[in-house]
């Protein structure tokens, strides 16, 4: 069935039309105050929305102002001074690395000697502990023990002394090596970073002076022309 056929049906179905019409007529009518209630509801919602807007807008505006102020007040990150600082820091860091490199060389020796000392001390302590236990048994041969024990102690003491003296020597050498290299480079020592450190030749200096003189003369000529022009203008008036 087409749409046109349905339009025909609309006219043909008299009973159906009449029945639906009667049904619709009997349907409860809209309350009179319904529109007034609806308008009250709509007004309430509009007020609620406007209140929300009133609350939100100042906050949004304040946030925007704060953001703009923050953007303008914060100093820029990359300035000339900072870049110089970075360059200097890099340059200065290099010579300082040398003493740092020396120290680890000295430290293992120290640790080895310390370890030796610790070992010798531990051995001496152990032996000292063992002595009271063993002495009653070795009483019949005191001369032998007396000869043996002092020799061991002497060896230990000698090695400890040697270790200490070696340590002291190494430290002195390290100090001697580091001392001349500890001189740090300042900003002025780097010729590239500052333009005043650049050296000009006599010819260049002479040329610069010539150029400045020429520029000064030109400026004077211009000033004269301007004053002449002004005089002419005032004379014409």
């Amino acid at each position, binding site marked *: *069935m*087409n*749409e046109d056929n*349905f339009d025909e*049906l*609309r006219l*043909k*179905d*008299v*009973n*159906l*039309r*009449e*029945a*639906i*019409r*009667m*049904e*619709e007529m009997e*349907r*409860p009518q*809209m*309350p009179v105050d*319904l*529109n007034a*209630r*609806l*308008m009250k*509801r*709509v*007004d309430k*919602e*509009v007020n609620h929305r406007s209140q929300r807007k009133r609350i939100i807008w100042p906050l949004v505006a304040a946030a925007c102002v704060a953001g703009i102020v923050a953007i303008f007040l914060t100093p820029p990150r990359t300035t000339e001074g900072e870049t110089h600082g970075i360059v200097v820091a890099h340059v200065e860091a290099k010579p300082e690395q040398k003493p740092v490199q020396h120290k680890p060389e000295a430290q293992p020796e120290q640790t080895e000697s310390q370890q030796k000392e610790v070992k010798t001390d531990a051995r001496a302590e152990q032996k000292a502990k063992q002595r009271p236990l063993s002495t009653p048994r070795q009483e019949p041969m005191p001369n032998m023990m007396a000869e043996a024990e002092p020799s061991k102690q002497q060896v230990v003491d000698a090695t400890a002394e040697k270790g200490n003296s070696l340590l002291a020597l190494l430290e002195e050498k390290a100090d001697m090596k580091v001392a001349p290299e500890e001189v740090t480079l300042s900003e002025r020592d780097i010729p590239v970073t500052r333009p005043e450190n650049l050296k000009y030749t006599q010819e260049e200096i002479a040329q610069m002076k010539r150029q400045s003189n020429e520029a000064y003369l030109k400026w004077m000529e211009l000033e004269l022309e301007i004053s002449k022009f002004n005089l002419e203008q005032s004379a014409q008036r």
Partner: protein
Amino acid sequence: MTTETEISLVEGLRKQSPKTQRHVLERYGGFVFSQVARLVPGNEDAEEVYQDVFVKVFSNIENFDASKSSFQTWLYRIAYNTSVSFLRQKRQPMIYFEDNEGKAEAISEDEVEATFGHASQETVMLIRAALKHLPPDERAIITMFYFDDMSIKEIAYVTEASSTGVICSKLQRTRKKLCKIIQMLRS
């Protein structure tokens, strides 16, 4: 499609003018309420849905496209959709005639025409009784077609049907269903 008065009303609604809002309510309120009352049983529920419809209309007036439909059809569409979604939310138990066995489909077109065509008070009464056994969406479609004199296209727009053919087949099926209910009532 959209008349000059409708255009001025829409412009007024877009400006959120209370005067225009009152005018729209006076002009279309009755139609919208009857549309809602067809679908939503109970006066209180119908009033609630009616208010929701106009709140939606006033707040979504920017979405109205005059090239697609008239303002009145757009209003009907919102009323229909709000009523249907209200019924879905409420999930009230309703008993309607369902043609599960396909007996209504077997009725011939001549038989249907004979039932609805020849004017008879008794048949009108039977049809009125039969209308109560139809589900709300079918009742709404048949009322839009026979009472509101809406075209198939407009009904398709209001019910958000995919095509006019869907509405045509629905109308045909509903007519046959009504005929079947009348036969059952007669027997």
